[in-house]
């Protein structure tokens, strides 16, 4: 299978480990990711927050899809939930609003972008055929490991736009991790907000919301939080010390991308998966629980 790949800005900077581990895992699964070289930013939160008609945000997203369409792709994999959400919203809004459709024609000339399908890697990996393949590739058992899966805000919301799993209680990441033999715990913060881009402006909000999430994970007895979003990862990981200081708590909870955990199971080395980039060390915990099959 060959997909166009849109990494988004974060996966080339703050979340290189997500990019690396996704490539490594896809390589094992026989999924080919073709990164279209001249992609640009999807506009993320700032573009839709200050545009009343939504034109800027839609144009930046659809412009990227048009590039992929020009390169001959029909399907694109988007690992960053923020980009995923922007692409899905742009396609949804353009289909729904005739005025936006007229205006966008003046900016993006190629009108074929609407046929493109946008997927998050979780959607691809949680298909039945892939799950069987994932189970068969396990080289290192992580049977003692208890994790919680954290999806963040934008992957599932709003459901009619995102069309991703069950909106309030998604399970696709759990299905993948269970296929690896990892125990996943039920908890209440799967799709709660981590404070997102307030990290740079109102850090107090991020500290409070991320504290709630870490507290929730700790209270159900999780060894680590497994995430699918670069912004959630960074808020929960690099701010964890600050949260512990502010709230007088002690978590030391590693925050891993689901692709990294898959890679570990597939027998890839922590170096290949760039585990060293995290602020809270995960390797010790993984050594404790893993057994080579």
């Amino acid at each position: 299978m060959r997909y166009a790949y849109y990494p988004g800005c974060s996966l080339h900077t703050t979340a290189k480990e997500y990019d690396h581990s996704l490539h490594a895992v896809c390589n094992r699964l026989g999924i080919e990711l073709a990164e279209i070289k001249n992609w640009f930013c999807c506009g993320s939160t700032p573009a839709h927050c200050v545009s009343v008609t939504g034109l800027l945000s839609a144009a930046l997203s659809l412009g990227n899809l048009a590039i992929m369409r020009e390169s001959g792709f029909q399907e694109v994999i988007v690992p960053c939930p923020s980009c995923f959400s922007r692409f899905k919203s742009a396609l949804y809004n353009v289909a729904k609003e005739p005025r936006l459709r007229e205006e966008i024609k003046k900016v993006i000339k190629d009108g074929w972008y609407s046929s493109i399908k946008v997927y998050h890697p979780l959607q691809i990996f949680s298909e039945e055929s892939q799950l069987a393949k994932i189970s068969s590739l396990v080289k290192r058992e992580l049977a003692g490991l208890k994790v919680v899966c954290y999806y963040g805000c934008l992957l599932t919301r709003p459901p009619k736009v995102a069309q991703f799993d069950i909106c309030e209680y998604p399970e696709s990441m759990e299905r993948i991790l269970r296929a690896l033999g990892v125990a996943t715990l039920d908890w209440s913060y799967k799709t709660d907000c981590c404070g997102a881009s307030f990290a740079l402006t109102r850090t107090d909000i991020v500290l409070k919301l991320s504290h709630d999430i870490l507290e929730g994970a700790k209270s159900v007895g999780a060894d680590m939080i497994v995430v699918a979003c670069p912004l959630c990862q960074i808020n929960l990981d690099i701010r964890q010390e600050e949260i512990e200081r502010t709230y007088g708590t002690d978590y030391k909870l590693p925050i891993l991308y689901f692709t990294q955990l898959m890679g570990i199971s597939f027998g890839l080395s922590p170096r290949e998966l760039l585990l060293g980039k995290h602020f809270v060390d995960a390797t010790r915990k993984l050594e404790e629980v893993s057994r080579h099959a």
Partner: protein
Amino acid sequence: MAHRTYIRVTEDPTIECVRLRYMVIPKEPVQVHRGFTDFADIIKSLSGLDVNLCFQCAKCASGCPVSYTMDYTPTQLVHAIQLGLTDLVLNSKTIWLCASCQTCTTRCPQDVDLAGVMDAVRSIAQRKKIKAKIPEVPAFYRSSLINISLFGRMYELGLILMLKLLTRSFTKDIGLGLRMLRKGKLNIFPSFRGALATRRIFSQVKAVEKK
């Protein structure tokens, strides 16, 4: 079922408005200017979103992760828009504290895209050049957009430095930033890939929106 609340328009600034159940009007006398009750219509014509569908069930306020720090809950803000309290809405902290997490939009039984309404209100406030109650947030949006249009892809280090200049918060998170640089989590140099495309899109969008 569209339901519309009208309140009496008065020229007398001393008349206190009647307190309703989800009252959004502060205790001091509020003058409602003539012509402001069409605020909801303005939002609808600009963004296509109808806030008059809201029947004040407060589901948005209960699910909102940041309502604890807002001056008006999302429910109250919608009520204020219905009442045409333009000044209150545009000068609220709420519009800048919305994290765009879409919980309200997802759960609204009347299908009001409240996160979209927040976008619309924020951009109206910016067009009217109203000084934001949480100035860091529009400063962040502005520097991000300049960043994207200049470099094509987000150049995080440039964004952080520009935001520091705009908000004069030079010492904030220095230690964290240095640790991120050491871990290779921030690129020192920007990539200019896609810069031509974003600059073209920004200027064309500006031209279309001006019309």
